[in-house]
């Protein structure tokens, strides 16, 4: 038996979802509810808290089976709209990665490069139903004699396409400044010299892993909103860290937990998978991701009720430090300060710039809430947790 006053199981919550009786609120709405009712009463009342985030997630991509040809082929190199996809797997399988640039892209030869098209854009075009030009090469074998194929296909016509992202949904992320005297173009956006802007990238109080800081409800098999469809958590993501410095509320103060996720690309939408051209840096993919958190007890509810003023991150210099591999913090700031439009650092007022869309994050949390209320989305039972 537990020491909690409220004890619910995922099975019980799913039964309530099935009958349409589950009480579902977003991670923003729960803050007021917990404040008014207290965590125990709120945990009794609320069954699920929904979260959401929408931001560039570079470790994303899709396994695609391009379909066999006659004569048969075992592809060794594949291009989708002139963007290379990794082909070192079985016959006509390949993996298109979000950050792969177009073959004829001038890159940063004229700095800062524009990076107009890449893997992320191929994925967006696919889910938008656009025709994609497929070109593949091979050295030819007795069983697979074909050495070259070329065709136009749409996502519908492809035998299989699954989104497999090895690292999404970062739990917290750096706030980037530039202490150098020249403008820099980074994956954290454009950073003006002399600390003239501070860029951050988290949905804060709506961000999935900030609402379950120890991943107590999230594990292998957790059902999630991924790119507009229902997807799943497959494991922790690459660079996942759990032994990190945390605040009194248990929430990490630096980049920490990550998730690897999977979903059927064929059910996803271009509204939630958006190709990104990051000036001077490269291409990527913005991914819409949301996780429903089952309120199993008052402890879980307390975690979900954190607000931006209780969530902190570190200010890191991308001018000198980050490129050298140093992660010295120039100060700790809350997401409430970051979202206000400016922060104070050493007496200097610095404009803050979000890179993560709150508008889209809210929409995801809302879609998840409605799908659960309408008995269309059930809580996945984690087969293994990571804490």
């Amino acid at each position, binding site marked *: 038996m537990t020491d909690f006053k409220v004890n619910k199981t995922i099975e019980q919550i799913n039964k309530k979802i099935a009958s349409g009786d589950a009480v579902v609120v977003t991670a923003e709405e729960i803050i007021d509810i917990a404040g008014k009712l207290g965590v125990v009463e709120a945990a009794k009342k609320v069954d699920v808290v929904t979260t959401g985030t929408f931001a560039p997630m570079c470790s994303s991509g899709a396994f695609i089976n391009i379909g066999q040809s006659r004569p048969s082929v075992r592809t060794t190199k594949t291009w989708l709209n002139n963007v290379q996809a990794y082909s070192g797997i079985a016959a006509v399988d390949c993996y298109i990665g979000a950050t792969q640039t177009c073959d004829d892209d001038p890159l940063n030869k004229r700095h800062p490069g524009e990076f107009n098209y890449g893997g992320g854009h191929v994925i967006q075009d696919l889910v938008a139903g656009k025709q994609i030009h497929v070109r593949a090469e091979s050295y030819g074998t007795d069983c697979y004699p074909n050495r070259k194929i070329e065709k136009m296909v749409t996502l519908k016509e492809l035998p299989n396409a699954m989104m497999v992202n090895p690292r999404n949904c970062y739990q917290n992320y750096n706030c980037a400044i530039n202490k150098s005297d020249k403008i820099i173009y980074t994956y954290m*956006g*454009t950073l003006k010299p002399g600390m003239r802007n501070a860029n951050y990238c988290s949905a804060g109080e709506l961000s999935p892993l900030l609402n379950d800081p120890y991943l107590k409800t999230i594990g292998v098999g957790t059902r999630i909103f991924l790119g507009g469809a229902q997807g799943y958590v497959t494991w922790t993501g690459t660079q996942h860290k759990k032994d990190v410095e945390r605040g009194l509320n248990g929430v990490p103060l630096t980049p920490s937990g990550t998730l690897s996720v999977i979903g059927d690309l064929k059910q996803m939408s271009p509204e939630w998978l958006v190709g990104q051209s990051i000036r001077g840096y490269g291409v990527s993919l913005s991914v819409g991701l949301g996780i429903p958190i089952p309120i199993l007890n008052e402890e879980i509810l307390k975690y979900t009720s954190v607000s931006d003023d209780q969530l902190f991150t570190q200010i890191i210099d991308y001018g000198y430090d980050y490129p050298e591999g140093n992660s010295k913090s120039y100060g700790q700031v809350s997401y409430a300060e970051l979202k206000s439009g400016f922060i104070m650092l050493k007496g200097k007022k610095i404009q803050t*710039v979000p890179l993560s869309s*709150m508008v889209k994050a809210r929409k995801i949390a809302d879609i998840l809430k409605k799908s659960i209320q309408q008995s269309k989305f059930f809580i996945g039972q984690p087969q293994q947790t990571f804490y």
Partner: protein
Amino acid sequence: MYSKILILNFPAEITQKALVCQLTKKFDLLFNILRANISNKKEGYMVIEISSASKAAFNKGVTFLKDQGVTVSSPEHQIFKNEEICTHCGACTAICPTEALYIKRPEMEVIFDKDKCTVCELCIVTCPTRAMGLFTSDSQKVI
């Protein structure tokens, strides 16, 4: 004080004429050249902010430029934000020099205030989803 940003297009045959300085001399207008590309005997353009005490004086000055063969257009419709494409990420607000692109709080929506735009075009290459474009005012055709 009445102030407006305009785009002046100079046909090749008048680029060698001293015209813009006449705004001050003849019409008592102040101007600030924000961007220009003018060479002798080649078609050129200028993005200019014209300030005046009254709208009437401003209009007289603009009429003068038009009479000299300058095509005058308003840049307010030149940079365009495609609301279908914008994801409200906010990356553009880092580089917009006039805060024409700003974040409305607490909604956290990215708003484009055309009146503040100086058509520097930095947003076009910075926007990660390419929601910002350069369009003509009439047909939204890319220039």
